[in-house]
């Protein structure tokens, strides 16, 4: 079943075309990767899907309804969450607060009910707390819950970003280079972890990744970008044997 579709989305910055005619289809439960050399427009594609950029052209549909011109927070409310390539945690806040904040979007109590600590709010607050602690348990950060998020080591910050994204209760999770800066053992763990959260939370996962080990090991399908153009699309096998991909990307990177 299709969960997200984009029709020819294009993003231009002045004279520069960052992404051109990107046609993406994601089916429920899939893990799909987007790869390509640096500056190929991958993060720009993420930014269009999550509403940070408005595409110059084309349309994006989530579960059949159009989301092209929605604001990022509306898109998150519908069930698309993301992480950032250059980690954007709430640096001065604690690990737990970071995750709690991501629960706020579903709050039903208004500010007065919250101020007066009415039972309705207290109930919601308790649920948020429970859920956040569970998530921290899952990503292995329960012991650090009161630490300042910026004091965590890099790898843990990445996991905290994933926990925070999961706290918004997404159905589609966009991961921007989750394995960046990890060694082979760590990326192996990450591969398992991504599969596990997909199964546990019924997620569809769309990720940008450079680690070929991770990409080939986990993805069911792969899109390949070069200079904003989709040069290939298919199963990991097909991509590995695609001549254009080898020329544009793998050839340089892997055989060097």
């Amino acid at each position: 079943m299709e969960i997200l579709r984009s029709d020819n989305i294009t993003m231009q910055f002045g004279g520069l075309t960052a992404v051109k005619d990107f046609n993406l289809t994601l089916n429920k439960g899939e893990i799909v990767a987007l790869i390509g050399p640096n500056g190929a427009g991958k993060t720009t594609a993420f930014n269009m899907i999550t509403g940070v950029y408005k595409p110059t052209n084309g349309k994006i549909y989530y579960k059949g309804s159009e989301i092209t011109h929605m604001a990022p927070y509306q898109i998150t409310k519908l069930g698309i969450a993301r992480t950032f390539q250059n980690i954007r945690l709430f640096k001065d806040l604690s690990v737990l607060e970071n995750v709690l904040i991501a629960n706020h979007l579903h709050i039903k109590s208004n500010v007065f009910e919250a101020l007066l600590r009415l039972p309705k709010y207290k109930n919601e607050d308790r649920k948020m707390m429970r859920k956040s602690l569970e998530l921290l348990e899952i990503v292995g950060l329960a012991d650090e819950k009161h630490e300042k998020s910026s004091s965590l080591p890099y790898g843990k910050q990445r996991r905290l970003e994933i926990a925070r994204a999961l706290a918004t209760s997404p159905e589609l999770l966009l991961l921007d280079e989750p394995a960046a800066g990890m060694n082979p053992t760590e990326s192996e763990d990450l591969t398992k972890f991504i599969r596990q959260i997909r199964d546990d939370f019924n997620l569809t996962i769309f990720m940008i990744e450079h680690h070929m080990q991770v990409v080939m090991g986990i993805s069911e399908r792969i899109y390949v970008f070069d200079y904003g153009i989709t040069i290939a699309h298919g199963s990991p096998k097909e991509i590995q044997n695609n001549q254009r991909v080898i020329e544009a990307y793998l050839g340089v990177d892997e055989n060097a």
Partner: protein
Amino acid sequence: MIKMTLDMFLQHLTNGISLGSLYALIAIGYTMVYGILRLINFAHGDIFMMATYFTFFGVLFGGKWYIVFPITIILTALLGMLVEISAYRNLRDAPKISILISAIGASFLIENLAIVIFGGRPKAFPTIPLFTSVVHIRNISIQRLTFIIPVVTVILLLSLLFLINKTKTGMAMRAVSKDHETARLMGINVDRTISITFGIGSALAAVGGIMWGLKFPQIQPLMGVMPGLKCFIAAVIGGIGSISGAVIGGFILGIGEIMLVALLPSLTGYRDAFAFILLIAILLLKPTGIMGEKISEKV
């Protein structure tokens, strides 16, 4: 609306143009500093005020205008550089809010030092007949200054554009405004370039201050606040960071203000609100101003 003769209209227009030229000169300082540091130099209006006091005391102690004016300009430029070194240099990598607070602190410091040193009561700015005498054309009587101001502004603007676009210093300024780190790697002395920028901006404010004093010959320590805010607004209208934009913004504001009062005298009391209403309108309609470039944050 009152009926207006052509003569009256011309009188208002020339007034508007000369006021606009003064706004433009001060606005350039804001736009240059913003271009290079992404900072509103809150103290700029107060630097402008200090220039009028330098001239006042220069003339009081018997200096001839052609000696006092250059000294005023140099002293004001040095003051601007001093403000930069003491209030902003330590905060290059600090959060924006800290730099802005420091700027507000610097502004209040200069204003209150001026009150302490010069006294809070207004002083009469010297009149210099060469500038302030009145000429009669048709039925209008106009101060010579009204013609001198726009001419001086245009000459200074052209020299500044030459400096920025054709000289090595100008190239360094443009480089620093794009990226401090890269400019430093290319061997540019970033701190010195920023100092020079403050110096030039303040020198222009000094010229503006001298002519302001001649045109409105009453000076007091808080006189820089309103013109300062208005000229920042002029810079925003023109597109902050753009020098020609600041000049255009200055003219729009100067002429607009004079015409508002001339055409709708009942709104005279709201004259100072006009600039702010214009500011809010432009920020909402076209935040980058008339000549500005769009800067978007990388995600």
